[in-house]
């Protein structure tokens, strides 16, 4: 067991690589660089536009938090080697279910929410089950569900309520114990105090004159951070996380090594559905209505955030922190271009360019790390 000198420490066939470069190259590097670049850009161009006052910060934080919620699900699923194009439709569908249960059928809101979660997670599991059993690419299977779920999202309210938008959920949710978990805000007293001592602005007039302009952190942000931390810990610190990487890296090899690939993949589909439902519930509880158009194209936005964050589209590689940074970049750019006063139709052009730039950078970083060819 000693004859192998080919693995001696010094290898004359490898040119040197510097230490700093090695310390820097990690999956999130692209996301970190991007985040720094984006903030630098907007600090230079839009500093006095209100983008970085309390309200402004809350604004892009909330938008980024939205992206984060679905990006975490999409990220873990992508690392597990699959992806889900039905996320956007699932958001619309879940919101509509809550509305129908709580408004049309007048069930208690907590029942509506829990039941919706159960149904959506079951649909996620069905997605996963079909993908695994038929061996079809998840692109196709979830594309089918993109259409099916959107179809029902339009059909149900038209059939039951003859509208494509169902409102009145805020009223229905009054006094409900579960609704504030999604639609509430936390930290109110702190913000009141901050407003009182003048650290943040207060409303100048109206019924809420004297109250701080930001009266708490929306639960949406709490969910986003919670999911990012959960996802990150799950992925990097647990054995299940290792299985996610393995399932996405090479399903066959993982299966041979005793990783329960089928279970892992289906659970990731369920988790993605869970994230979509969290997104939908927060939105419905905040705005009090569900519309048939909610969530359009969100699946792409989730995938874009994840890919900007350094994950490999084909699975087996990525990071939740990266995806969260991707979501932050996405949110800040989307809102920031507005603050900077850029023509809104050009947003898509920017988005496309950022996406291309980010993946090229990420690919380069990944090749350095994994020695992939």
């Amino acid at each position, binding site marked *: 067991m000693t004859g192998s000198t080919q693995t001696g420490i010094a290898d004359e066939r490898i040119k040197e690589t510097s230490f700093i470069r090695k310390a820097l190259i990690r999956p999130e590097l692209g996301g970190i660089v991007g985040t720094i670049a984006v903030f630098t850009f907007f600090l230079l161009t839009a500093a006095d536009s209100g983008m970085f006052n309390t*309200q402004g910060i809350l604004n892009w934080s909330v938008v980024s938090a939205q992206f984060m919620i679905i990006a975490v699900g999409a990220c873990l699923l992508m690392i597990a080697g699959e992806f889900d194009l039905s996320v956007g439709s699932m958001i619309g569908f879940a919101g509509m279910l809550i509305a129908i249960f709580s408004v049309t059928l007048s069930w208690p809101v907590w029942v509506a929410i829990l039941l919706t979660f159960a149904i959506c997670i079951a649909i996620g599991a069905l997605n996963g089950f079909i993908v695994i059993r038929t061996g079809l690419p998840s692109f196709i299977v979830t594309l089918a569900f993109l259409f099916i779920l959107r179809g029902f999202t339009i059909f149900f309210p038209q059939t039951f309520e003859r*509208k494509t938008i169902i409102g009145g959920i805020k009223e229905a949710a009054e006094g409900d114990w579960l609704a504030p978990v999604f639609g509430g805000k936390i930290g109110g007293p702190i913000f009141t105090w901050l407003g009182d001592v003048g650290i943040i602005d207060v409303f100048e007039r109206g019924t809420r004159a004297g109250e701080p302009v930001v009266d708490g952190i929306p639960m949406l942000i709490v969910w986003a951070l919670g999911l990012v931390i959960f996802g990150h810990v799950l992925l990097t610190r647990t054995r299940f996380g290792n299985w996610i990487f393995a399932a996405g890296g090479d399903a066959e090899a993982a299966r041979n090594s005793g990783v329960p690939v089928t279970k892992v993949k289906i659970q990731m589909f369920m988790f993605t559905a869970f994230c979509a439902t969290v997104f939908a519930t927060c939105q419905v509880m905040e705005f009090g209505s569900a519309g048939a158009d909610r969530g359009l194209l969100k699946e792409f936005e989730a995938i874009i955030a994840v890919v900007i964050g350094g994950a490999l589209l084909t699975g087996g590689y990525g990071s939740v922190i990266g995806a969260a940074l991707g979501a932050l970049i996405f949110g800040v750019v989307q809102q920031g271009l*507005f603050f900077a006063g850029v023509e809104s139709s050009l947003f898509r052009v920017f988005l496309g360019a950022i996406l291309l730039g980010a993946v090229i950078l990420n690919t380069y970083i990944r090749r350095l790390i994994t020695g992939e060819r």
Partner: protein
Amino acid sequence: EGERYVLVSHAPDSDSWWNTIKNGVALAGEQMGVEVEYRNPPTGDLADMARIIEQAAASGPDGIITTLADYDVLSGPISDAISSGVDVIIINSGSPDQARELGALMYVGQPEYDAGFAAGQRAAGDGIGSFLCVNHYINSPSSTERCQGFADGLGVELGNQMIDSGQDPAEIKNKVLAYLSANPETEAVLTLGPTSADPTILALEENGMAGDIYFGTFDLGEEIVKGLKSGVINWGIDQQPFLQAYLPVIVLANYHRYGVLPGNNINSGPGFVTADGLTKVEEFAGEYR
């Protein structure tokens, strides 16, 4: 001088009708010497629109001009904006009552359902009993309200008379043809804007029903004006989007400069445009009309 106003709409980027609004607000800004911005959610998602209003408020403008496409979704951000000292004018959708409730300065526009209802009554007066509503934007609540209003104005059940036509012109055209050949007894066609009206005109020309079937449409565009002129379209409902964009800027600027404010809401729409007096409409259709 140098006031800044932001107009937030609920329409997706590519919508032609809202383009008139965009042009109107730009013109008003130029004339009044104020800075104006037009913002909209790229996919037409109202939840995204709420964020844009919040963001507009955060950027500290003097006034916000916005639609009220869904009271539930938008009331929160709008009333926060008002409370933080931004003056708001509601345009286009929503209702004068809702605008007042929120504390907006005024309402400029014509509620979708009411417009549809009035059109329905007019059609009923012309002896119509059944219709086809070509909905090219089924996801949007306001489109559905127009069809629903029309049906209620006619006094009939909407049911299958509204079709989800999609936005591809060839598909719209062929879906209209398919519907009309499967339901030949249909007496009227209602389209919701240039996107659905233009292909519908072609469809009717192709199946020979042009000029024969009762045809009404919302909003104006080049082809619609031609249709009105040639008699293919009986009437168009024009809310004069130009005014919905132009007037609020004028009102806000004068309010901020001289403290003057009209006492009433403004009804932007004169209602129905018919073949008579189309010259101006023709010239500026799609741009200012």
